[in-house]
């Protein structure tokens, strides 16, 4: 009886609690519906395609479907010595069909990714195959080129048998699965990707450090100067921020070239001799200098917005309690700016690790990063599944940092301008 008494009813006679919950639910749905269009749009055009990349990076059905008979015959083969006649025959039949359908080029490209030199022997086989006589295909194929008698090539062919493979990921970290099924590193002189990963990390790390060292003093100055001066100086930060990335890269290309202004200046002050101007572009120096300048605003803005909220009286209090200005700064001011430092550093690091344009233009061969390698495989070698695999490895790293960023700073605290 008593519990019923406490229940407050609305004018319709429905308990208030129920009515409120209903209204709450309605509001929830309303809010969600507003977000829905963008969310759906992004899921269809962005999230699914990234999922598609994941699928592409492991999908290897193309070769499997192109050589069905060969792989059936190969099931019996142990991979130690050259395969038997039936494998050769099956391969001949499969390949003949591909040549008739004119799709053998795709197979040649794919197999060449697996082992260099496949393309030429497949082409040669295509030419000689017209004169093949029935029976004893093993002999005839081995006659075409001596590489067909090399068991390595048949092993490479067998490695492409499964429909799904993680080989591209292994390749991305300079490893491969050898004949015995063990995962081993590629020979030392061919470990190119490891160098690229390390270089990307190194560049991102140093650019972040340089940006921090340069941004901290000017953010502090901007935050402590009176408004009328700081607004003016803020333009120096915001104008590069709003200017086209390519324009800024172009200006660095002009400055850093061998007959450029920076070199002129070095010659003028006698740092280097005129006929011995250092190469500052098309190497890592160029990448460092240009990337630091381009990403600097992304460090200044978060630092500034945090420093703006620190009351100057805190420093005065620190000094009046007997600290020297340095002690007051280190013990009072600096700890208060740590959220800004975290936000700025993570943002710059995330942006630097995936940088493409600037390294491609001023980096040369020794200054290119992992992004450039991805673009190279997308555009030149057309090994899209490898590009996808590399992209996803990079993405995993970036998302891990993004997660940390979200935990520490919160994405809703990102400020622009």
């Amino acid at each position, binding site marked *: 009886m008593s519990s019923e008494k406490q229940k407050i009813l609305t004018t319709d006679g429905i308990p208030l609690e129920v009515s409120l919950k209903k209204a709450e639910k309605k509001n929830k749905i309303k809010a969600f519906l507003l977000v829905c269009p963008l969310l759906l749009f992004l899921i269809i055009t962005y999230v699914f395609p990234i999922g598609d990349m994941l699928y592409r990076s492991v999908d290897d059905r193309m070769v499997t479907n192109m050589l069905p008979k060969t792989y059936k015959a190969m099931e019996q083969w142990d991979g130690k010595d050259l395969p038997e006649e039936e494998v050769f025959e099956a391969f001949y039949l499969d390949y003949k069909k591909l040549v008739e359908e004119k799709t053998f080029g795709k197979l040649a490209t794919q197999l060449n990714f697996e082992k260099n030199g496949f393309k030429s022997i497949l082409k040669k086989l295509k030419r000689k195959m017209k004169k093949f006589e029935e029976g004893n295909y093993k002999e005839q194929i081995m006659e075409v080129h001596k590489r067909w008698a090399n068991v390595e090539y048949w092993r490479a062919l067998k490695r492409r048998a499964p429909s799904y493979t993680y080989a591209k990921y292994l390749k991305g970290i300079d490893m491969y699965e050898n004949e015995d099924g063990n995962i081993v590193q590629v020979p030392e002189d061919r470990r190119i990707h490891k160098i690229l990963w390390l270089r990307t990390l190194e560049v991102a790390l140093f650019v972040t450090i340089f940006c921090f060292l340069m941004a901290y003093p000017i953010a502090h100055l901007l935050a402590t100067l009176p408004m009328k001066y700081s607004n003016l100086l803020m333009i120096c930060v915001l104008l590069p921020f709003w200017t086209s990335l390519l324009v800024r890269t172009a200006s660095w290309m002009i400055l850093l070239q061998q007959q450029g202004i920076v070199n002129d200046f070095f010659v003028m002050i006698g740092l280097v001799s005129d006929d011995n101007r250092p190469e500052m572009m098309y190497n890592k120096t160029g990448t460092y200098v240009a990337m630091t300048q381009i990403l600097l605003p992304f460090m200044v803005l978060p630092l500034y917005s945090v420093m703006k909220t620190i009351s100057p009286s805190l420093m005065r209090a620190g000094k009046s309690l007997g600290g020297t200005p340095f002690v007051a700064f280190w013990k009072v001011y600096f700890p208060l700016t740590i959220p800004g430092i975290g936000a700025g550093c993570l943002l710059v690091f995330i942006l630097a690790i995936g940088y493409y344009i600037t390294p491609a233009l001023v980096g040369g061969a020794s200054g290119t990063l992992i992004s450039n390698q991805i673009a190279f495989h997308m555009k030149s070698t057309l090994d899209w599944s490898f590009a996808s695999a590399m992209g996803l490895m990079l993405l995993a790293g970036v998302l891990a940092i993004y997660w940390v960023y*979200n935990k520490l700073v919160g994405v809703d605290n990102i400020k622009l301008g």
Partner: protein
Amino acid sequence: MALPKYTEPHYRIWHYFYLFICGCVFFFLIAPLFVIFPLSFNAEEFLVFSEGMKRLDPDAFSLRWYKDMIYGTKNPWGLAAKNSFIIALFATLGSVILGTVAALGLSSRHMPYKGIIMAALISPMIVPLIISGVAIFFFMAKVGLAATHTGIVLAHIILGTPFVVITVTATLSGFDHSVTRAASSLGSDPVNTFMKITLPLILPGVISGGLFAFVTSFDEVVVVLFLAGLDNTTIPIQMWTGLREQLSPTILAVATCLIVLSTLILVTAELLRRRSERIRGINR
């Protein structure tokens, strides 16, 4: 920042040293942009200051490269500029509409899973462009929109919406929701309330988000590199090709125009930011 009279000498030195460092950093930030101006008026074909320019000889300067940019034979800049503006305009429109509506939902206190959804909506800004480029290229190729304006516009909407979502949510964070309640209690329907009450109040945020989206699209090169065919070349693509092949002074003329454009955008964005703060009653 004037130092008090009683400052000890070594702190005084330190202070001037600090100002000197700041000066150097500001110089580092802004100076590279200003090399482009004079060199774009170079009468010669080289990208270095000629002897004449150093003497400020009027003959060493000319508008030759600007003429080349506009009237040059086989010049790609006209088509590129047209494409860039069309693509950026539609991409901005799309980003602003989708982003603003989503931001309205996100700033509602009833929004479920706010954190995760916000993180997802912002992700195109965080994910490296090269990865977005590859993913979007696969998608557009699949649906047959590669090498079309529509495909590039859609791609740029993806990249532009995070900026709109961020700026509009920031504007809405100081928004007094009682005004919309007042409007509804006076008999206005939700659409009318939005158009007459909410939109005018958040307009500065919407426009500055739109500016970000515009600049993102106008300056975007990585994704377009994958998507563009010969007919949809844009200004950044032309600059990219030019910078890779031969660095001609015409590029500097274009770059100068782009710097002027970005200055205009910066001024607009700054004015809007201040207006928005005034409307929302934030006085710093």
